[in-house]
């Protein structure tokens, strides 16, 4: 008969059983990338969970120190690779704050539009992947993919690349939008609305889905603050904490939008908050289309080579997963002295053990999915 490693060492007889460890990841259909967690289970119940990260570590911060300010753009795209533009936004803001550049108004609007479209992109990814975690056999995944492809197509028209656009520049954006951008974005928003409706019907209108998610691993606002959660994770608990409002940047103060919040902080609320946020992002993009002025998209006074004297800054933005912060430090020269990323996925993930212990194995997978981590951001 087969003997488990635990059973070989532990005292096992008819009355004393041992807990079993299950390895989930880094190659596992449910880990959203190369995350690994070792679950200790008693039957179907999780009694302990030990996460392991670092499989996607690429030395982002060190690479940034060794390249000049503009060269590093591409690395930062690849942190939250589901919403590259949001990361570029934060990085560019940090560089601008260090150097003290002005950004043309048109460029600010373009940036906000792109960041909000990226947010929709990332939230669609979550909706699709979460549906697959709950077990809807890839249908939700493919639904999400359809809308994501359309956004990606638009990104390609704008920047020349789909996933890693490298479109933002310190001091503006690389080039102006294509001529037909307004009709294209409106068309896109129509599709996205339809896509969200489809998700509403496929998942939220489903008894099993609601039954599995509602009341699962509720987080109180106090716990959320203590654990350092941010983004949809903290808003699901009922706290309307959004950097776009708490510490407004770019043109967000001029835009009208609501902050969706949940009530119980459970998995269902996290799902619903992200869905409602996608609606709000669409609203923001629409307003941008109305308000966007004509003009330059890149500050013309920029030097050929950026050299920044002693400066220090911390920039907070609302990334797709939460507070995406960049701490920058310049000590002269063409390279930054330090660029530190405060990644929301990493902070949200650190609360995984507290959320998972005491639940079923199947629920552990769902809870991990509801954190909506992206490993490029966790491992940097």
């Amino acid at each position, binding site marked *: 008969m*087969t003997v488990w490693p635990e059973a070989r060492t532990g005292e096992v007889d008819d009355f004393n059983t041992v807990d079993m460890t299950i390895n989930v990841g880094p190659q596992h259909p449910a880990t959203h990338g190369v995350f690994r967690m070792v679950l200790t289970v008693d039957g179907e119940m999780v009694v302990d969970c030990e996460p392991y990260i670092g499989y996607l570590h690429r030395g982002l911060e060190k690479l940034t120190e060794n390249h000049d300010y503009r060269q590093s753009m591409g690395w930062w795209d690849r942190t939250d690779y589901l919403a590259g533009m949001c990361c570029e936004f934060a990085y560019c803001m940090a560089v601008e704050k260090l150097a003290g550049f002005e950004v043309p108004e048109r460029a600010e609007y373009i940036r906000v539009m792109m960041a909000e479209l990226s947010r929709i992109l990332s939230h669609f990814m979550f909706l699709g992947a979460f549906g697959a975690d709950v*077990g809807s056999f890839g249908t939700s995944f493919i639904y999400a993919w359809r809308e994501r492809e359309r956004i990606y197509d638009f990104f390609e028209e704008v920047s020349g690349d789909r996933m890693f656009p490298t479109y933002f520049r310190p001091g503006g954006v690389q080039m102006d939008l294509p001529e037909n951008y307004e009709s294209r974005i409106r068309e896109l928003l129509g599709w996205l609305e339809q896509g969200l409706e489809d998700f509403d019907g496929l998942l939220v209108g489903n008894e099993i889905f609601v039954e599995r998610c509602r009341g699962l691993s509720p987080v109180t606002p106090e716990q959320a603050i203590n654990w350092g959660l941010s983004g949809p994770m903290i808003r699901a608990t009922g706290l309307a904490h959004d950097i776009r409002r708490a510490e407004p940047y770019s043109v967000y103060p001029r835009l009208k*939008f609501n902050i969706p919040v949940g009530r119980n902080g459970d998995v269902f609320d996290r799902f619903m908050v992200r869905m409602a946020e996608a609606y709000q992002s669409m609203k923001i993009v629409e307003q941008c289309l109305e308000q966007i002025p004509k003009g330059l998209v890149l500050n013309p006074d920029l030097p050929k080579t950026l050299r920044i004297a002693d400066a220090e800054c911390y920039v907070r933005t609302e990334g797709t997963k939460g507070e995406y912060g960049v701490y920058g430090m310049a000590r002269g020269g063409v390279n930054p002295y330090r660029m530190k990323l405060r990644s929301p996925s990493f902070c949200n993930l650190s609360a995984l053990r507290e959320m998972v212990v005491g639940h079923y194995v199947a629920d552990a997978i769902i809870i991990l999915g509801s954190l909506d981590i992206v490993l490029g951001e966790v491992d940097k």
Partner: protein
Amino acid sequence: MPIDSFGDALFGLPSWIDAIIRIVLVVLAMTVVVIYLTYGERKVVARFQQRLGPTETGPAGLIQGLADALKLVTKEDIRPTNADRWVFELAPYATFIPVLMMLMALPFAADWGVRNLTLGLFYVFAILGLNIVGILMAGLGSGNKYALLGGVRAAAQMISYEIPLVISLLCVVMITGADANPDGSNGVGSLNLNVIAALQADRPFLVLQPLAFLIFFTAMLSELHRAPFDIPVAESEIVGGYFVEYSGIRWSMFQLTEYASMWGFSVFGSVVFLGGWAWPYGMFDWDAPWWAQLAATMVKSLLFITLIFWVRTTVPRLRIDQLMSFCWKVLLPMSILQMAMNGVILVYDWPQELLAASSAAGAAVLIAIIIRRAVRRPSRDLVGTYKTLGAPAQ
């Protein structure tokens, strides 16, 4: 009734040669059906998901299943070092043989089946119970924790769901008792699948027993490990469950089992509830030729299978405790209720319309229990409220 001729020599040959010919025909049919079911599933699911499915291998991808089978057979047969050798190697056969044996009792047409058993219905689910042994063998013998979890889950689930399954079938057997005597009085029910089919010449039992049908269909999904009851093979949790360590031909045995039992269950269900080979021909008082009867059975079983595919693509997975409580707290009481209602109506010789009406009411109750929350559509309310909650717009 053509039942009397069933079991006679088909080609005028001795009985045992005849039996072998029938077995070979059924096994060949099963192979072809399984290959095209995998193809069909991929096509149907692809359409649900706005994809095309296989298109390249042969016209419209028609020989994709054949190519897959060929690939699987030629692949290396890997046995993990940690596995229990004989348990591991025999498990696929222990899973597959009960399904094959079940196919032997199914009446595909009035005269087309391997054997016409007097206790056919009893035989089918008795044999299917053996399936669990093979799955447990695979789960325990693989030396893999995912497989162990999958095997244990499968055993718990299949044993639990067998009870409502059997009770819902017995409800139909009770009805056959009402019909069996020509003078209309209650007789003894029949477990013979051919008799059950022939008695539905005028109307399928689905009309009389919708509640039993719903319970049967749900329990059948569970027995087949199909969504939303695919917990033992949950890909996103335990990566495939009890057959995670199998490869090549042994893995294809599990695949064969899955689709063959799906087909077998569908034929079985269409014989018991949808009239099998007898309906709708009996309605027109037309003694249908064998190929028409065969076509009727196959079309009905394909309807069943399409329904299974449909459910699979749209419905998420239950959790193990929800699965168990659904079986013991909802399905089992409802199936006993159906049985009790049938009993009362049959004992007092009340008309069949009452039978249909009471069962339909029960089915409505069951559906209401299942979708009680989804009807409220929380999403629309919540997205609406979320939009207005939180910080006010600036």
